[in-house]
């Protein structure tokens, strides 16, 4: 292939055993001419150690404020092919399941109307088609909707919800994360496509505490699977694991709440009321142990990356949520909780303030009171250790007398 740009630095990254993104850009350039200039510009960045993309801009499809991220080269004369090189976020399927037939059609759109380069998938979950010109956006959008795929979220909107593989292929799943993710995504299309929030808002659904979607680290609203009843034990299978490794060393002693014991005679015993559903024993002996049958989820709130006031993890908001029961009702209880949270955020939050930052600013107690939840010990690692309490009531002498 005759190359438009010399790329000695990038060529170094075609060596080695891991699949090369440089080779992928080259392959995309074989399908879409514009992509050649991307190689040139990235090579220049490698030479100068600095980025060559400009600040976003006003691009999108009509009626939506989401789903397209504007990208412009700051060297448009030198690299005309990537003068406009926008990202199209295409909402992935729940659980990232596809057929070859559908995938071919999806990437054909990128070959025909854009750079032929994709992210499978972006960090939030969308399929990202990179490198679309402004004039092609509407066509690309319509081609994807014809296949039954809509755009995902961007900007101050609900971001594309995502979930783990859940009940489709995992015995650890305590609720149907794919069904819930899909249902919630469909319910909040308006909030995804027409930004009305102070800042982004992310949902992630993980069906057990292993949290394969990293929801506790990055979702404003994390739904993490758990269960109410006892861990199911197959004592024979426990014994078999005991022949493979030291049960005490690798299972019993590592239990964070010390709720397990084992003896050859008595088998494995679990004090389920003290189990914190951490998943360690189940992870280690999946053939012997299973979560209970009364599955559901813990709802947590507030995780985010550093901007603006520092990174946060999600904190417990609802210790147990009966997902299956609510699913019968189209997740009405969950949607109501969400709308209360959004109302509070709308009322008290400021621009670019994530919900976790707002809760920190106004205090967890005030927040839960406003959305109608009770304070619960499950919400804290421990009660406060300082006496600076904002008591809200006191009695005065005359009232005492009256009383």
């Amino acid at each position: 292939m005759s190359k438009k740009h010399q790329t000695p630095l990038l060529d170094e990254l075609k060596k080695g055993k891991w699949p090369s993104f440089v080779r992928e850009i080259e392959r995309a350039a074989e399908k879409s001419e514009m992509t050649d200039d991307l190689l040139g510009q990235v090579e220049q960045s490698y030479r100068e150690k600095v980025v060559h993309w400009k600040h976003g801009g006003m691009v999108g499809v009509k009626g939506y404020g989401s789903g397209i991220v504007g990208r412009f080269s700051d060297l448009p004369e030198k690299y005309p092919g990537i003068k406009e090189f926008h990202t199209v976020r295409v909402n992935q399927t729940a659980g990232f399941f596809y057929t070859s037939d559908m995938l071919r059609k999806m990437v054909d759109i990128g070959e025909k109307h854009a750079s032929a380069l994709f992210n499978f998938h972006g960090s939030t979950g969308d399929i990202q088609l990179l490198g679309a010109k402004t004039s092609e956006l509407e066509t690309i959008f319509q081609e994807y909707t014809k296949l039954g795929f809509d755009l995902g979220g961007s900007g101050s909107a609900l971001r594309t919800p995502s979930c783990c593989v859940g009940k489709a292929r995992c015995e650890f799943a305590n609720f149907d994360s794919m069904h819930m993710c899909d249902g919630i995504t469909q319910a909040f299309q308006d909030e995804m496509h027409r930004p009305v929030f102070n800042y982004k808002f992310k949902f992630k659904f993980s069906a057990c505490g292993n949290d394969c979607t990293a929801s506790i680290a990055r979702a404003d609203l994390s739904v993490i699977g758990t269960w109410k009843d006892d861990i199911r034990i197959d004592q024979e299978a426990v014994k078999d694991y005991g022949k493979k490794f030291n049960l005490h060393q690798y299972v019993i002693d590592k239990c964070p709440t010390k709720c397990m014991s084992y003896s050859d005679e008595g088998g494995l015993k679990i004090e389920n009321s003290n189990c914190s559903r951490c998943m360690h024993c189940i992870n280690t002996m999946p053939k012997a142990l299973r979560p209970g049958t009364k599955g559901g989820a813990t709802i947590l709130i507030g995780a985010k990356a550093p901007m603006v006031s520092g990174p946060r993890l999600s904190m417990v908001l609802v210790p147990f949520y009966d997902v299956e029961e609510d699913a019968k009702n189209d997740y009405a209880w969950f949607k109501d909780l969400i709308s209360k949270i959004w109302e509070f955020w709308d009322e008290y939050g400021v621009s670019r303030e994530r919900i976790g930052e707002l809760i920190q600013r106004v205090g967890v107690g005030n927040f839960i009171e406003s959305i109608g939840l009770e304070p619960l010990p499950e919400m804290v690692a421990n009660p406060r250790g300082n006496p600076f309490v904002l008591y809200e009531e006191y009695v005065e002498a005359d009232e005492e007398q009256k009383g």
Partner: protein
Amino acid sequence: MTDETKKKLEEAIVSLIKEYTNKKRFKPGDIVKEMEGKFSASGVTKDDVKSAIRELTDSGQLIYGYAGGSFLALPE
């Protein structure tokens, strides 16, 4: 909300954004609050303002922009 109020509401939204071009970036939420107050006598609700914004963006009279946060603007 009457058709007449709706028309007035849409005009007020566009003229507010026009007036503040290059001075302030209105988030859709700002517009909702602003208009809810301004049209409270006509019984305009949050959802009315939202649907007005939707009609204005669907018809291309307003577009969304992004600069660290989303905002509404007149087409360039």
